[in-house]
């Protein structure tokens, strides 16, 4: 079976996850060892993907693609889940969530995302999506003695199941009107205006928008982000977003390429609504996890703006955006993991007040990250937004660009408010000292990346210019 060599990452991931599951079952108190082995496994798969030479291939009757795009998104997914696992270990142990199933569920979720980003077929895509979201439901409510965590899990489960139902309905319409589940076949058969396809497209879009939490399907995000344990929130805010955005790009540029003028306005609306809601609603938040939820809604709005441009530059800028977004969010959550006092983790923003006196380094890195999230030059977040707006202006969507710029300014308010709290308010009791090199290292990597990005801003362009959909 010659095609198996293209499947090595997926096969290795699934088989080793089963092995880890067995280790976890038969060895007592195996959280530590399973957790470490999962981190090593992710590293190993990353190395395998990086060293293998890329061939553009389609296997399993053209339903599974291996190309630059899927490889790049797999690298992003692996890198981000690697860092998330590194920085969240202490939190998981401290909050007594150290069940060995935790890393295993994350690994299976990652497997689902692998399948999603490689899929070229509606059925395969849906199975990947279910695999990843099933893991996320369990993760959200893993702190089962905490009523907020259970609420988050239940809410996410019910709403997400509804979104999956809508998405499936859209898929069935697409299949009915195009006669195939293969993305390319669909795009070939739906070239002209066809009411059934458009209905299907709208339903699929609703499901996908829910998964990436774009307005108006964002309602679950703040509650789930706040209720879930912080380690899970960090995972939620980074890894599934990559997979969701990649799949959104794939859908828009493969099966729906012919009906661009139909989906463009929907995406423009979603983008504008997400940007505005993300920046306005975040202003009143006092909980930092809730704030990160609204911030992620806003950032998804910018990412969707790139897709809405409808050009190759557009989705490439979205990929750059999401890559930089990962780096910023990883750093931000690294800092949130450092907010511990008396053995308890703190989520209120006002508890940060005056932290620049007691924790100058942590405050400085949080400042860099927040400025970058706000898009202030010369940090990486600025370039991310810059590419998006360039692509949007190139497609002559001036309204979208102007509203985007305005909401950037609005969102700068609440990011800078945290900076003000940290630097100009009266100091509170210092946080506990941590001796966790993994968290410090991750924050350092994130900050160095964000600060030094302007030295060589075209670093992504070379990788991304090779990425074409189809």
């Amino acid at each position, binding site marked *: 079976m010659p095609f198996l060599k293209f499947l090595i990452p997926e096969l290795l991931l*699934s088989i080793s996850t*089963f092995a880890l*599951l067995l280790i976890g079952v038969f060895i007592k108190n195996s959280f530590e060892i399973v957790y470490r082995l999962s981190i090593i496994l992710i590293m190993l798969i990353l190395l395998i993907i990086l060293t293998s030479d890329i061939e553009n291939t389609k296997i*399993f*009757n053209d*339903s*599974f693609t291996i190309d630059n795009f899927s490889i790049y998104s797999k690298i992003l997914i692996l890198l981000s889940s690697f860092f998330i696992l590194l920085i969240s270990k202490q939190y998981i142990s401290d909050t007594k969530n150290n*069940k060995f*199933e935790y890393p*295993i*569920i994350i690994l*299976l979720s990652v*497997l689902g995302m692998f*399948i999603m980003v490689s899929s070229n077929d509606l*059925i*395969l895509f849906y*199975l*990947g999506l*279910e*695999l990843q979201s*099933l*893991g996320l*439901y*369990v993760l959200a*409510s*893993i702190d*089962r003695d905490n009523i907020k965590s259970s609420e988050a*899990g239940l809410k996410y489960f019910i709403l997400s199941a509804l979104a999956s139902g809508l998405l499936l309905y859209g898929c069935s319409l697409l299949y009915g009107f195009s006669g195939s589940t293969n993305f390319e076949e669909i795009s070939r058969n739906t070239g002209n205006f066809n009411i059934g396809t458009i209905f299907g497209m709208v339903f699929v879009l609703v499901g996908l928008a829910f998964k990436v939490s774009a307005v108006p399907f964002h309602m679950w995000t703040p509650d789930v982000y706040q209720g879930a344990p912080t380690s899970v929130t960090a995972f939620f805010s980074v890894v599934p977003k990559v997979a969701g955005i990649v799949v959104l790009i794939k859908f828009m540029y493969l099966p729906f390429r012919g009906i661009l003028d139909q989906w463009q306005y929907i995406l423009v609306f979603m983008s504008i609504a997400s940007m505005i809601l993300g920046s306005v609603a975040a202003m009143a938040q006092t909980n930092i996890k809730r704030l990160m939820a609204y911030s992620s809604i806003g950032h998804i709005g910018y990412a969707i703006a790139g897709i809405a441009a409808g050009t190759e530059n557009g989705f490439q800028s979205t990929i750059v955006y999401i890559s930089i977004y990962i780096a910023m969010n990883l750093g931000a959550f690294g800092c949130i993991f450092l907010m511990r006092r008396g053995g308890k983790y703190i989520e209120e923003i006002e508890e940060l007040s005056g932290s620049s006196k007691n924790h100058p380094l942590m405050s400085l890195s949080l400042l860099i990250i927040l400025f970058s999230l706000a898009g202030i030059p010369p940090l990486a977040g600025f370039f991310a937004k810059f590419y998006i707006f360039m692509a949007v202006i190139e497609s002559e969507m001036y309204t979208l660009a102007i509203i985007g710029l305005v909401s950037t300014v609005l969102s700068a308010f609440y990011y800078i408010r945290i900076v003000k709290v940290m630097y100009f308010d009266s100091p509170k009791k210092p946080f506990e000292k941590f001796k966790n090199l993994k968290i410090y290292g991750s924050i350092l990597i994130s900050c160095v990346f964000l600060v030094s990005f302007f030295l060589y801003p075209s670093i992504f362009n070379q990788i991304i210019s090779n990425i074409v959909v189809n």
Partner: protein
Amino acid sequence: MIAHAFFFYFFSLIAIISAIMVIVSRNTVHAVFFLILDFISIACLFIMIGAEFLGMMMLIVYVGAVAVLFLFVVMLMNVTEQKLSWFRGSKKSGHIPTGLVIGSVILLELVVIVGGWKYRDTFSETKFLSFDENFTNTHLIGNVMYTEYIHLFQISGIILLLSMVGAIVLTYRKREGVKKQSYFKQVAREREDSVELVDVEFEKGIKIDD
């Protein structure tokens, strides 16, 4: 053709009405009844397009699963009070009339589908699935499931594994102080481990630990 359309609209109408009733009925037991009716109507639709395997699976899996669900509902809710109150007693219960209505509709559907067997020839003209007449549905599904769709089949297996793991993570609690029987310990136990021979001095007795 007309017969086909008639049966199609008949089953679809029942399916849609019962699907709506599942959502609007306030009584859980009624909702379950309607769910069963819905599944049976959809199974009939499957049988009509020539996918008899899917239809039968629908009946076995879903109606079977719903029966279990029904048991749970009955177990968790306090329905003993309402028992037989339709026939006597002041409090009226809707269970029996609803059950009767749904039961008679299912009976009607069975009559229709059995009676419709007469029109099989007209059905096969308008059949939507095209496949070799010499093979059964089950055979054909088996042919593609382990060849063309093997990856989908395997991924579904992984999804089931994950749902099992998830259910265990969310519900399993380790209880303290539960005594478990260990066969290995029991069988491996020697006489020397548990019996000790002591010479007891006269009029003093012995003190046994614990």
